[in-house]
């Protein structure tokens, strides 16, 4: 996104809004990850304890999810920059 036409007061305002939004996005990413990995990995409710198999699945699942969203983030940033066109000189 290009905020170069914004004055400094507006830029400061946007920075705060973006920081807040990033925190919220991070939290949503986090709880979405927990939900997704729980739903995929936990299917046995004869015990409330996490089995070692379930735990390994959860660890791999969250590892993979973070790497996945990191990679999506990279491609997304590239394609978004492309769509916005080259910066003005």
């Amino acid at each position, binding site marked *: *996104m290009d*905020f170069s*036409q*914004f*004055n400094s*007061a*507006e830029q400061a*305002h*946007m920075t705060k*809004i*973006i920081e807040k*939004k990033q925190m919220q*996005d991070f939290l*949503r*990413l986090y709880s*979405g990850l927990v939900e*997704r990995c729980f739903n*995929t*990995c936990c299917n046995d409710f004869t015990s409330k304890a996490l089995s070692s198999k379930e735990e*390994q*699945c959860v*660890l*791999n*699942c*969250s*590892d*993979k*999810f973070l*790497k*996945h*969203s990191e*990679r*999506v*983030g990279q*491609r*997304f940033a590239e*394609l*978004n920059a492309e*769509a*916005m066109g080259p910066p003005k000189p």
Partner: protein
Amino acid sequence: MSLFGRGSPTSSGGVNHERIEMAVNEIDMVSDVFNRIVSSCHSKCISPRYAEGDLNKGESVCIDRCVAKFFEVNKKVGEKMQSAGANAQATGASTFSL
């Protein structure tokens, strides 16, 4: 991924609230799209077996193509909506009356 024109830079010095609101809308939109891509491409590309924590080669390539294709779809739909946009918005408007 821009549906909105930039407001003309009429105000100077203070904060142009309309311009801020449009920017916030744009940020919300980009963030919403990003989250949907993460979710869709996870379903399309990541095997739910979780035998290891790294992305394998096939998954990585799939993610790259998936994100690109999602952008393509977004663009096609955006073009379509820009012509039909007024209608769609009017539909939403019919939900409330003042």
